[in-house]
């Protein structure tokens, strides 16, 4: 442990004397957050390009549900199979799998007290909900010659915060910035290898795994600092420049868990690139291009919901998409531990895989 602390202190000293390099890690995502949040604010406000997936859960059974769903589908609304029951419907809306679920009670149309319930995802723009209500009114005219009695219930966000450009762009560009630690990690590592410092440390029986772990602590702290500052930028800087303010989550512990998982995956990626690359140029190309591809695929540069449906499953391959799912579960949906468990586990698994691959590669080169 003492050796690890010594390595961390050394790393801090070296990093703190390269303030320009350090500043880029903070300025780059902050600039992206501000520019993209402002540039895309209208797109997000109008819900442009969004296909809203809904389901109908009718007490009369699947045939009634399907008939009503068919009437409601179209013009940006796509129907899907109804959940088994109301509890399942609420859960799916809370997790963001369904944007809207219409619950039709027994005796609707016959008993004036029977009301429709519409469960809505809080990330859905109000314009989309209004448009759905209009379609609903049209579809139910045959049942009742007036606007249907309706309970509108927003599920998953007790404070009713609505999604905005800033809610997409702050976590997205924060993740992008966090993954960019690949560049300083690999640069420091390759310079250490080139200058013989790494060889000297190995000859002094400092385990190679310890040398890799020696990079984790300082960059983990940097990633957490990035998280705090980028969230602060979303709360203060973006509204100051005319955009919407970021609504902060109530569960800071979950936010910290997602940020920590993302950080470890990013650092693991940096360590693998550092060990695999023979030159600084290689590391810059592999690390930089890898990040840009993961960001393009993972809904960082282009939000996933505006991607064609055929492309959306591919987005799930990107670790940045996993991280974005985790951040959205906390920031948008006020989710629970269960909601961040899967994305966090995937990120931690990836971090372990990257670290194992880096160690394996080092061993292979040694013999």
């Amino acid at each position, binding site marked *: 442990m003492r050796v690890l602390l010594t390595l961390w202190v050394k790393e801090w000293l*070296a990093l703190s004397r390269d303030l320009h390099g350090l500043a880029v890690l903070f300025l780059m995502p902050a600039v992206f957050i501000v520019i993209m949040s402002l540039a895309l604010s209208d797109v997000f406000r109008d819900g442009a390009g969004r296909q809203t997936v809904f389901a109908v859960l009718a007490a009369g059974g699947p045939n009634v549900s399907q008939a009503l769903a068919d009437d409601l589908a179209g013009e940006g609304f796509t129907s899907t199979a109804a959940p088994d029951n109301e509890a399942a419907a609420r859960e799916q809306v809370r997790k963001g799998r369904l944007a809207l679920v219409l619950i039709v009670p027994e005796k609707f149309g016959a008993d004036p007290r029977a009301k429709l319930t519409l469960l809505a995802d809080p990330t859905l723009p109000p314009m989309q909900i209004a448009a759905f209500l209009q379609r609903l009114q049209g579809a139910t005219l045959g049942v009742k010659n007036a606007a249907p009695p309706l309970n509108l219930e927003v599920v998953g966000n007790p404070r009713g915060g609505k999604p905005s450009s800033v809610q997409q762009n702050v976590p997205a560009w924060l993740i992008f910035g966090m993954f960019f630690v690949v560049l300083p990690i690999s640069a420091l590592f390759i310079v250490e290898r080139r*200058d*013989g410092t790494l*060889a*000297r440390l190995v000859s*002094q*029986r400092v385990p190679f795994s310890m040398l890799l772990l020696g990079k984790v602590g300082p960059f983990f702290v940097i990633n957490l600092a990035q998280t705090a500052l980028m969230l602060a930028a979303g709360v203060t800087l973006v509204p100051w420049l005319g955009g919407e303010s970021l609504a902060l989550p109530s569960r800071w512990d979950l936010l910290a868990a997602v940020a920590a998982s993302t950080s470890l995956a990013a650092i693991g990626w940096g360590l693998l690139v550092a060990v695999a690359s023979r030159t600084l140029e290689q590391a810059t190309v592999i690390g930089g291009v890898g990040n840009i591809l993961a960001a393009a695929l993972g809904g960082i540069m282009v939000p996933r919901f505006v991607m064609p449906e055929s492309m959306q499953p591919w987005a799930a391959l990107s670790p940045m998409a996993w991280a974005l799912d985790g951040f959205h579960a906390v920031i948008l949906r006020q989710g629970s531990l269960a909601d961040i468990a899967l994305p966090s586990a995937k990120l931690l698994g990836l971090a372990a895989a990257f670290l194992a691959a880096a160690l394996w590669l080092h061993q292979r*080169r040694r*013999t």
Partner: protein
Amino acid sequence: MLKVEGVSFRYAGGEEPVLRQLSIDVPAGGIFGLLGPNGAGKTTLISILAGQLRAEGSVTVDGTPLEELRRREPASLGLVPQEFAFYPMLTCVENLRFFGAVQGLGGARLRERVDSVANFARIVNVMPRRAGELSGGLRRRLNLAIGLLTEPRILLLDEPTVGVDPQSRSFLLDSIRALAGAGKTIIYTSHYMEEIEAICDRVAIIDAGRVLRDGALDELLRDEAAAVPVRHNNRSLEALFMHLTNRSLRD
């Protein structure tokens, strides 16, 4: 005695082995010179002795496998690589403290060793300066000082005088002699023949991963004198070296 027996090594993806069944005996105490043209395998051998590379064959110290010795007594072997193997962004004192601490030194013992090696290498006056700002000679002295922190009994010096002025070189050679005088075993590689002749007791000339000649420096020069062609027959180490490794360029 450090005994290297039948050591072979090939880099991953390399076509030819860098070392081929190489064997040398390095007696305890004194300075053992390792000579060879570029690509002969000197640095690879040093890397194997330092534990950075794993090779076929055996390396023992007084009968104990080197790996076991390094495990039991990690501080028994010190390395001074030919690169400036320290952190240019850190000051001299921070570098010394860091390399001492990762080798298990701490508290008063660490302070004492840092002071001692700084005095030995005469870098006391530049301790608060960043290592990257030092002159070539001072960097070489810091590089040497780091290798001495744990008082190793075997010291591997890989071209420790490259790129320094005559004053610094003279100081470094005197320092290395002093270390050998204190009973340390030093393995020394260099391209400077006059350095090897000036400070080494025994020499091995290697090329293409094999030992061409090894033995006491005086004996080598005496025994080989007759075999060296007339134009090189000046009984110098350089003449012997050129005769054994031939004059073709290697890079």
